């Protein structure tokens, strides 16, 4: 209980994290209560095409197919958040494991894995993603997985660095002297103590995932069966001069979400700072 209260007090003290948290709460509310807060389902093609924001029944206007912009934004939130979470989860788990193994076992294992990480980092991400989507189709699952598979190297590098320094800590030597085997040490001591930078980087990579998905959809490579903000921006391109609200509002949604994740990630970096975690220790 004391721990929870302490965490809460830490959270409220860091402004960035708090702001990020509020932002996430807003997004989650949009996701969960989507049917309740929108009058029209997103794929409802109404009679009013390109209605201005403030028109009766459509407070943010409609696009050229009569779809309600507000509904599209709200349902688009689901897509973006889903992509962000799944991609970041894939990227985080692979990165944590690979980085931990490389740093912990060292020697040849480390050499091989480090080279693999370097190779992955050399490949231009967006081109790889486009290639995969072109080859394997543009379903949302493919998009999420490929984003996850191109962002794990950064997490692996972070985890590897953490592992290398944690290996030298006295409590790791103590665990070995107690007879714990290497697996136990990796999973009980190294990963739980070293994962914090990965966690905050994962939040940042959520922002990257949202942006990438929007970019793909903008290029027409996204999943056409789901509502996506990138798609909205693309659609709105053709009439941006006389009906800018379609692209602009969708663009603002992207900006807001990316901002929220960045605030969260930055704030997490402050809170999960190991010095703060072990307050009271010399």
């Amino acid at each position, binding site marked *: 209980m004391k721990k929870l209260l302490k965490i809460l007090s830490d959270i409220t003290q860091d402004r960035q994290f708090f702001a990020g948290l509020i932002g996430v709460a807003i997004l989650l509310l949009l996701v969960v209560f989507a049917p309740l807060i929108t009058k029209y389902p997103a794929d409802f093609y109404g009679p009013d095409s390109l209605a201005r924001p403030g028109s009766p029944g459509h407070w943010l206007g409609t696009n050229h197919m009569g779809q309600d912009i507000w509904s599209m934004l709200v349902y688009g939130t689901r897509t973006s958040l889903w992509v962000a979470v799944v991609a970041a989860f894939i990227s985080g788990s692979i990165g944590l494991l690979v980085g931990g193994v490389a740093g912990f076992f060292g020697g040849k294992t480390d050499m091989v894995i480090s080279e693999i990480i370097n190779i992955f980092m050399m490949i231009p991400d967006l081109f790889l993603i486009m290639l995969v989507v072109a080859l394997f189709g543009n379903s949302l699952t493919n998009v999420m997985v490929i984003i996850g598979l191109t962002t794990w190297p950064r997490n692996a590098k972070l985890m590897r660095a953490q592992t290398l320094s944690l290996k030298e800590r006295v409590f790791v030597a103590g*665990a070995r002297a107690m007879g714990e085997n290497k697996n136990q040490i990796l999973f009980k001591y190294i990963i739980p103590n070293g994962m914090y930078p990965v966690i905050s980087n994962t939040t940042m990579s959520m922002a990257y995932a949202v942006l990438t998905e929007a970019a793909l959809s903008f290029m027409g490579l996204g999943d056409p069966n789901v509502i996506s903000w990138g798609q909205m921006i693309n659609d709105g391109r053709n009439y941006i001069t006389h009906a800018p609200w379609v692209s602009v509002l969708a663009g603002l949604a992207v900006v807001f979400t990316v901002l929220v994740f960045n605030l969260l990630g930055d704030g997490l970096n402050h809170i999960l700072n190991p010095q703060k975690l072990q*307050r009271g220790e010399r």
Partner: protein
Amino acid sequence: MSGNYIEIKDISKFYPVKGSGTLLGGKGSRKLVKAVNGVSVGMAQGEVLGVIGESGCGKSTLARLLTRLETPTAGDVFIGGVSTGKMLEQDAKKFYRTVQIVFQNPYDAFTPRDTIEQLLSRPLKNHGICPDRASRHERCAELLESGNLRPAEDILKRYPHELSGGQLQRIAILRAMSLDPAVIVADEPVSMLDVSVRADIINMLLEQSASKKVTVVFISHDIALTRHVADNIAVMYLGRIVEYGAAQTIIESPLHPYTQALISNCASIDIADRVEPIRIDGEPPTPIDPGPGCFFADRCPVAEEICFREYPETAARAGNHRVACHKA
């Protein structure tokens, strides 16, 4: 030296110097840091052996070799006649139950994520010492009580950063003792603690080990403290033991010029004890391929020609006093 319960035989640890040696690994040009270079010493059961020496002498590496946190390049340690090398191969867990260590830094000795109970019960679980959770909890509480850490139930729930250095080091000692070891290696166990707390920790270590007849290898740079604690003292220099004997003898009548210089430079709290410190020039070098003769020759105030040519044999003196010096 047969008949000793614990026998350290010719143990060595060499590290290659990075950047030396040819690409294809020609042995001729490879330089080695001989951190521990053929150390042999025996201990009786329940004895406290003090190991002193300055930086670079290899005492910390010796601690790591004894506990197999590093694998020796050569040599072995025998406990009750059984080779620890073999023990490790056949039943690693048995080895780790037999030889335990207490580290210098109590503040980093435990993972910050575990409670004290988790820290203490994990080795018990690992080595199958208690059958179930309840008995492990009992045992942990017992351990804390035996070390005067009360109220035990409260402390079990705490995290390491909530406790003081003295408490943490006590817990470290208790954890080591919980596995019923034959040997405990104490590597500078009190140097990071406040002076007024040290005595308690030292007394606890000695009591606990005496009650179970555990042999203690006490490594320290604090010579006055080592004299107080140890039955016998081994003086190390550049990876080798240069002198060995009863604690009192080493301090009061050292024979090796290095030991003499070391003791004379010790500040004593007794104001009446004013000894003129013996000067030795230069700094303790790194043990990279030490020369053919005595390792201390180039800094020794009484070195002669033979000292630079041949490494001195270890000669026995009165009682168990041994010294490796041409001039002693």
